[in-house]
């Protein structure tokens, strides 16, 4: 196994005495999809927030590409190649689809203390944004107002904005949430393609998605990781069965 892209050690964070993350340790290596599953309230979204930098841990450390980023602000992590999507769609509703993605491209193209030339004249920006839209299958109407797109398209746009930053690691917070069966299949296909050149940490409720693409799965319950292993090992783990009380896992097993 090569050196991990992301290495989380003993990460803890509690809110008013309730531990949302407790002594969490996990790794994501290049080319791997590492899925985090667990019942509601297990602390999955807290973990994503901790990794993205929106929350600071009470203790523990996060290393990314060999660098400690535990105390680094959100934007600096993003600059280093750690991109995320949001569980609840977070886009720029007043901007066009391509405008949304161009914003993410712009964030990684030099600084933006450029006051005079119109951004519309920056063809490279638009070109690159269109390419990314193509990657997620949204290229047919790039100038549509993002606020008016469907939920499924919003999920894809989320993905496109993360990809536009050319990340080394993707933090995906329930990318398939609220998607229909066909849309889910399309999303899985996109994720499959993406894993080739980056690491993915996937938080997902849809067990079909998880077992379709995860290389490794960590099961979280009440802020703790109770098991980590291959999909096969997780299916057969007694603790996991108990924690889930048969929910979900049997169907996909």
């Amino acid at each position, binding site marked *: 196994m090569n050196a991990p892209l992301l290495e989380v050690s003993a990460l803890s964070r509690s809110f008013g005495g309730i531990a949302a993350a407790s002594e969490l340790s996990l790794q994501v290596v290049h080319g791997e999809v590492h899925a985090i599953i667990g019942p509601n309230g297990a602390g999955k979204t807290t973990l994503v927030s901790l990794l*993205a930098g929106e929350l600071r841990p009470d203790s523990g450390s996060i290393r990314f590409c060999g660098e400690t980023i535990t105390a680094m*602000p959100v934007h600096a992590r*993003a*600059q280093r190649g750690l*991109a995320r999507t949001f569980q609840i769609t977070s886009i720029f509703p007043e901007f066009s689809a391509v405008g949304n993605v161009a914003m993410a491209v712009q964030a*990684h193209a030099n600084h*933006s203390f450029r006051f005079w030339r119109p951004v519309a004249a920056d063809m490279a920006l638009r070109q690159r944004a269109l390419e990314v839209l193509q990657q997620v299958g949204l290229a047919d109407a790039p100038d549509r107002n993002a606020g008016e797109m469907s939920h499924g398209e919003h999920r894809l746009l989320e993905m496109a904005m993360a990809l536009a930053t050319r990340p080394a690691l993707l933090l995906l917070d329930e990318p398939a949430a609220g998607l229909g069966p066909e849309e889910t299949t399309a999303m899985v296909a996109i994720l499959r393609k993406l894993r080739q050149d980056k690491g993915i940490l996937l938080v997902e409720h849809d067990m079909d998605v998880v077992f379709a693409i995860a290389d490794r799965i960590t099961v979280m319950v009440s802020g703790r990781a109770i098991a980590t292993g291959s999909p096969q090992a997780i299916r057969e783990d007694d603790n996991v069965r108990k924690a889930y009380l048969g929910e979900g896992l049997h169907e996909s097993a």
Partner: protein
Amino acid sequence: MSSSTPQYLARHWPAFAGVLVLLAAPLAITYWDQPFYLDVLMRLMILAIAASSLNLILGYGGMISLGHSVYIGIGAYAVGIPAYYDQYSGVLQLLLALGGAGIFALVTGLICLRTRGAYFIMITLAFAQMMYFTFVSIEEYGGDDGLVIYARSDFGGLFDVENSIRLYYLVAACLLLTLLLVHRIVNSHFGMVIRGAKSNEPRMRAVGFPTFRYRLACYVISGMLCGLAGWLMGNFTGFISPEMMDWTRSGELIAMVILGGSGTLLGPTIGAAVFIGMETVLAEVTVYWHLYLGLLLILVAKFGRGGLGGLWQRIRGVR
């Protein structure tokens, strides 16, 4: 940018008509000998500069500052205080106005921009009020009563603004320059960051923008532009007092921005025109014209999304 010149003219004819009217106005005013209206137009344009500068942070950046008139005060005192010491150099006064406003914006921005929502509103308000009370308490510069400025900024033989018509054209040039600057800024890479941060700041940070420093830069630019308005105001009125930065003046600036349509290039200018227009016309009829202004503001707040400019666009069927 991509549309051809005739199309551009057709879409923006009211703006060009407005520019022509502003440029020709002094001729008409001189012809009919109505210098009062020269003053009205100058005040209108100065307030339009101030409101446009506020629009940059409020309309495009979503930073609701309720203390923007402090920069008018700073700019005006940058004329008045040197004049008090017999320093009339226009370059010095202008540098003081822009520098003073910029530094005040930088220092207060560092604190204000750490806060969000209602806190931001109240803090900008409080800092402006701090300057207000500070100048009230400095008796050397007239305290509450203010200072009379006996001569306008002196640019040597280059440009003499003692003549009111020349001052008028200087003000008009400053307004056009401000509008051009705002237009370029909001459509630039920098402008995208500012507008993106208004739309969805967590997302901006998540894609990798250090939004704080961009917002701070925008806040400083806006303060300096308003400082320019203050410098013109000091020259125009020939009298300065802390009252210029009273928070109700800031409220009026916000009213102009929203009346005309916040987040649009010409909205603040239209708002300033409506404001001055009401003041000029209604004040002739009744001393209680603020009552009607107040009612108008309440109605616009409830029903007038996009202000009067938005209404105009809806009439023309443009989104």
